[in-house]
């Protein structure tokens, strides 16, 4: 008992003394699986390795493309790009960064053994031709409009230090040498990832001597860690706590509209869909083929209510694939107004005056408040007259079944809720994957779990994807979005906000791509 008392009284003293001023402690909501930048193409991995390794092209906090390790570039012709590297860039071991390292890195990407999510797609079809130590050309087989977006996802490693090192070596620190503002210190799976400042960095000097990333998955625990001073910054502020933290005097909030859309997909490939039944329980023809039904459904979704009551303001009603502040989005599309009477009328006109029975499926714990959003939508559809049931599944189960759980490895469900984050910072990927007519060979409709297809949109989208000129491409993409959204190819609900909370006094620049970077934090 006495020992305990002593520990407690010491604890008071310890808590009162401030942490080392130049250390930054960040709590992450999900942990990286490795310290190898090319091993696992997921945000939790990319954001921590980005401190140590840098790509040729940077994305700023709005996902706009900026020169990175490549100082400048130009398009020679539709199939050739020329890049010039920044001078004076050094790796952490002191060796200079050259075109050889670029070639090494691009070659390493497809050859990481047992990678659960390789970045191979970003380098496919690209060949590099060295001009001199700081200049190179990339040739592509077909016009590559997303060249820069792809290069922004490939971290540059040292040809000398990283030659032959495995993912396990990199986890242990061997060959973990980049050009980034921070040097790798250690990676303890399940606990922390630590980096320290690299004094030979080519850019502006970072204010933090050491950055410690702690992995705290549980939402309230992460908030408690900030409030008790265990950490200086937390990412993914839970929606339940955002409003309260905003009022907390010792906490500063930073928030940005994200590139993540939450939406509903409807079965568009079957004549009869398994989770839709008549009110009497008998099988009925798939109602989602009827445009009026789809319009009724989207009108019945009270988006402001979901945003306000479920997301507690941590989201914005959605009208298309990305918020219209992004290039390539349509300014004409606005979130569909909630109109229950109008929806009922449309449903009656479509031949369903009494509605039908529907089960919505969705993941539980994959997107912010996912199961609650589904419940809220189900309430709204039930008011419309569609007797809606909800089934939420663990994400692993949900995605297997939603993607290939049905006969012939086709999607199983009739209506699903899912989310999509536009990693490229523009809508072409979203349109192609979620709304493009399903075609495995062309790689179109890869996440089109409703199998919506509209040849008119495919044509415009294909044209956009082959257009290298940024402005022309943006106009084509907006047109494609309008075609698909007016046809209600999917029902957009909201765009999430990304929110960070920090100790008062820290300046945090919020990012749209959900990345938590020490470089965005200034004292």
């Amino acid at each position: 008992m006495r020992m305990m008392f002593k520990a407690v009284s010491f604890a008071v003293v310890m808590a009162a003394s401030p942490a080392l001023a130049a250390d930054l402690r960040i709590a992450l909501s999900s942990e990286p699986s490795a310290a190898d930048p090319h091993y696992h193409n997921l945000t939790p991995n990319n954001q921590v390795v980005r401190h140590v390794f840098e790509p040729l092209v940077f994305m700023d906090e709005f996902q706009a493309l900026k020169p990175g390790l490549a100082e400048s570039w130009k398009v020679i012709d539709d199939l050739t790009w020329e890049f010039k590297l920044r001078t004076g860039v050094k790796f952490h071991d002191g060796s200079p960064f050259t075109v050889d390292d670029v070639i090494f890195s691009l070659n390493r990407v497809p050859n990481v053994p047992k990678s659960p999510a390789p970045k191979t797609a970003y380098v496919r079809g690209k060949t590099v031709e060295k001009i001199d130590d700081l200049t190179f050309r990339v040739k592509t087989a077909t016009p590559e409009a997303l060249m820069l977006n792809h290069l922004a996802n490939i971290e540059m490693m040292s040809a000398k230090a990283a030659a032959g090192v495995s993912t396990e070596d990199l986890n242990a620190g061997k060959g973990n040498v980049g050009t980034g503002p921070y040097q790798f210190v250690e990676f303890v799976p399940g606990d922390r990832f630590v980096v320290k400042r690299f004094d030979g960095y080519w850019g502006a000097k970072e204010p933090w001597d050491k950055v410690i990333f702690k992995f705290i998955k549980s939402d309230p625990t992460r908030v408690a860690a900030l409030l008790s001073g265990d950490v200086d910054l937390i990412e993914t502020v839970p929606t339940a706590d955002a409003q309260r933290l905003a009022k907390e005097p010792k906490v500063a909030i930073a928030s940005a509209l994200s590139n993540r859309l939450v939406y509903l997909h409807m079965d568009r490939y079957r004549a009869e869909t398994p989770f839709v039944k008549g009110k009497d329980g008998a099988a009925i023809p798939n109602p989602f083929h009827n445009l009026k039904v789809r319009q009724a459904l989207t009108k019945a979704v009270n988006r402001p209510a979901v945003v306000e009551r479920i997301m507690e303001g941590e989201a914005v009603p959605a009208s298309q694939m990305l918020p219209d502040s992004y290039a390539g989005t349509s300014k004409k599309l606005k979130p569909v107004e909630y109109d229950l009477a109008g929806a009922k009328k449309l449903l009656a006109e479509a031949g369903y005056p009494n509605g039908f029975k529907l089960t919505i499926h969705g993941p539980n714990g994959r997107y912010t408040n996912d199961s609650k959003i589904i419940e809220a939508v189900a309430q709204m559809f039930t008011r419309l007259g569609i007797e809606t049931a909800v089934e939420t599944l663990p994400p692993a189960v949900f995605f297997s079944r939603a993607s290939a759980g049905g006969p012939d490895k086709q999607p199983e469900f009739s209506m699903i809720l899912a989310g999509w984050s536009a990693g490229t910072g523009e809508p072409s990927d979203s349109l192609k994957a979620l709304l493009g007519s399903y075609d495995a060979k062309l790689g179109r409709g890869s996440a089109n779990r409703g199998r919506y297809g509209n040849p008119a949109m495919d044509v415009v989208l294909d044209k956009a994807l082959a257009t290298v000129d940024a402005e022309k491409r943006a106009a084509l993409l907006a047109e494609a979005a309008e075609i698909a959204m007016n046809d209600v190819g999917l029902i957009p609900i909201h765009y999430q906000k990304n929110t960070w909370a920090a100790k008062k006094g820290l300046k945090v620049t919020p990012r749209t791509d959900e990345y938590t970077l020490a470089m965005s934090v200034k004292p």
Partner: protein
Amino acid sequence: MLAFILRRLMQAVFVVVAMVVLVFFGTYVIGDPVWMMVPGDATIEQVGEVRRTFGFDQPVYVQFLHFLGDVVRGEFGRSYVHGTSAIALILARMPATMELAFAALILAVVIGLPLGLFAGLKPEHPAARAIMAGSILGFSLPTFWVGLMLIMLFSVMLGWLPATGRGPVVSIFGLETSMLSLDGWRHLLLPALNLALLKISLVIRLTRSGTREAALQDYVKFARAKGLSQSRIVGVHILKNILIPIVTVLGLEFGSLVAFSVVTESIFAWPGMGKLLLEAIQRLDRPLIVAYVMVVVLLFVTINLIVDILYSALDPRVRLSESEA
């Protein structure tokens, strides 16, 4: 004795094999792990590639044969997500869990024993009744709920103790521990208390009933008649006699502490193997789940075996009955 140990080990092997087969086919049925590995915007081509890399495109029995082949070669599988040896990942996390369970055990004894003694010696005292009522509460409170309350009170409202994580770790005789520094203990205290709660109640009840029984025994009455002081009677005569069953039960309960640490670790972000298991289940990381089951079953069987052997060595009554039989 040797035959006994061998038989137990055989059983352990049998359980491990049964559990591994169950988990292997079970995880196959639940879902395709590839969806938890690739990013949300992966193309069909990418998904197919990853599937081929990991052999998910093969029928389940082929996958199982591959797995058996690996086991024969002494390789128990690599985590899909981490890409490193699953057993190594678990063993790396084990010290943290062991430390937590051990600290909880200490707390259970340090808090439970004095309270139980008191309740046993003065059963009619109001405080004793309060202690017993409290012990029922301790049995009934769900661990996860208490964990959050502890964080609310001690970390957020009072700000005395850190809410999460483990303190600085030092290596001593090859064993990693955070128990040698003050900061380590500050981090350890709340999760250990959370985990210990059920066991504190258990120790209180065991001690109380043991004390009450012992107090009625002839040797205690005799000691009292001899005019020995109360503290000496309690310290020497009673405590000595009730400690053996308590130690035995606690030995067996160590296994359940390790199991319940799954809950505590996930609340307090304690970097132990329980948290690893939950993540593995969520991500359908089959090699990791299988390895966890193997390690933990072996661990429990070993603990039970040691307790059994110690028990028969320590408790004279067990020996007596054996020789009589």
